[in-house]
């Protein structure tokens, strides 16, 4: 099992595989299928200060090899998450990454301050990139200055390391990464969804009530991979990558691109066992590739020369 263990700021992971935020709730539903302690970590659903109703329905639509969603950050709010959801996860041997969202800086700061004190929360994921919140969420994710500033303020109050989740809806992803690195981020998670839409054939109107939604799934994997490849070469921050991962080979791709760990989103809906299956499969692939540890493959897409030994 040591072939897969990964050490990241705040996170000592049995393996680099975890469900992505919003695609696994707070774990309850998927705990029907397997023991969550198997997972490297869990990125729980975005938490906001107050309860959120989310967007009207329809909230999802299918596209070629992808799906659109506009859930709109529906969640029970900070208090309920702290009092009910996170304590429930204590039964598992599972470090939690809390996804923090809001409309204004103050919201983020408040949520971060409190949620980072919860025992099993080992890191925060700053969701500055959700395309489905109107009040300003998107601005945080596409403007480097705002993102840096927000990161700084959240870092100032957080009791655990802070990972910032980058939006792919930018011209220059490395600029965003470097901005939040400057702001004091401990790590990056990338990518959130691309903004897309689908129309109803008959009416010509958007299928999703919110009109546009976030595109996820295999369709976006090439974009995610490219962004991880670019950012990992210029930023010293560890990256937890996501975007279309649905197999162990996809995880290998993202590690090869330069990520340190990988998260699985949409694929959970297709196959509820996917995270477990990936974790089971990875050692076999490492053998096939002659890698003693998964991080021996890290960044090999751009590193010159032979496979490095990560402990060398």
């Amino acid at each position: 099992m040591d072939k897969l263990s990964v050490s990241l700021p705040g996170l000592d992971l049995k393996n680099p595989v975890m469900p992505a935020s919003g695609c696994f709730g707070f774990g309850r539903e998927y705990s029907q299928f397997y023991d969550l302690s198997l997972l490297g970590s869990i990125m729980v659903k975005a938490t906001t200060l107050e309860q959120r109703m989310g967007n009207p329905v329809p909230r999802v639509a299918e596209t070629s090899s992808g799906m659109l969603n506009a859930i709109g950050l529906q969640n029970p709010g900070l208090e309920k998450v702290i009092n009910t959801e996170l304590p429930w996860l204590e039964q598992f041997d599972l470090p939690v990454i809390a996804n923090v969202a809001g409309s204004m800086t103050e919201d983020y700061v408040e949520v971060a301050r409190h949620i980072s004190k919860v025992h099993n929360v080992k890191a925060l994921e700053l969701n500055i990139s959700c395309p489905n919140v109107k009040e300003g969420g998107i601005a945080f994710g596409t403007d480097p200055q705002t993102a840096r500033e927000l990161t700084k303020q959240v870092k100032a109050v957080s009791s655990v390391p802070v990972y910032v989740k980058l939006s792919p809806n930018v011209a220059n992803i490395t600029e965003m990464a470097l901005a939040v690195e400057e702001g004091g981020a401990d790590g990056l998670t990338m990518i959130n969804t691309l903004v897309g839409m689908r129309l109803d054939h008959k009416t010509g109107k958007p299928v999703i009530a919110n009109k546009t939604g976030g595109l996820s799934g295999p369709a976006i994997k090439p974009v995610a991979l490219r962004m991880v490849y670019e950012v990992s070469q210029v930023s010293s921050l560890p990256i937890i990558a996501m975007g279309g991962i649905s197999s162990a080979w996809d995880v290998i791709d993202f590690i090869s691109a330069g990520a340190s760990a990988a998260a699985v989103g949409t694929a959970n809906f297709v196959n509820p066992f996917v995270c477990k299956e990936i974790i089971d499969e990875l050692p076999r692939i490492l053998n096939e590739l002659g890698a003693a540890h998964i991080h021996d493959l890290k960044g090999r897409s751009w590193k010159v020369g032979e496979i490095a030994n990560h402990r060398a």
Partner: protein
Amino acid sequence: MIKVEKMKIEQQTEIAKNIYEIRLKGDLVSEIKMPGQFVHIKVNSANDPLLRRPISISSYDKREQTMTLIYRASGLGTRELVNQTDEIDVMGPLGSGFPVETAQGKTAILIGGGIGVPPLYECSKQLKAKGFNVIHVLGFESKETVFYEAAFKELGPVYVTTADGTYGTKGFVTNAITEFNLQADVFYACGPVPMLGAVEQQLSHMPGFISMEQRMGCGIGACLACVCQVNGPEPYKKVCTDGPVFRKGELVYG
């Protein structure tokens, strides 16, 4: 327990225009709790179509470990399902169905619209077995899409409506209920949302149960895609786990 299983396709037949009946065999059937539950189907192993498709269980036979689904081949996924011959990846049973076990009264009216008709079949069978008189009102687009009329007739009277009047009463299920002055102690309805709203209004004098539809992601309550608005302190319920069957009066119609 929810299973994810490659179920054997025992039979697949077109029973009306673009309407297919498919019989599946597998362990999953043992887990079915009540009529009105559904399964979530991955129609092939490709990335496109990506998502599973929710389809109601129309009837099941626990001894044989078989269940029958009826679906309309319309979009990408259901059209692909038609091509499958061997086995199929099914997740289920899901959701909570029609509470037949606790049903009260003597006469039940079952009201289905289009592809909302299928789950009512098992519901009717079980009500009948409990001693209920079952009356059926089944609405379709037109004559060529009518299905299961004979099957329902074996259980009790059937009133068919078609929107274009090519068969049965012209119009909607509500027209037939009025026209034939149908009376009952409880109703069970499944169909398009406008139909459900109209039925709730029309039958406001009796208790009833309504099966809702919503676009789904996970099918198990995790993604919050499939919410519907309800009366009560929690503004939303999830169709996939809290439903698909709701009690009359629970739902808020947009």
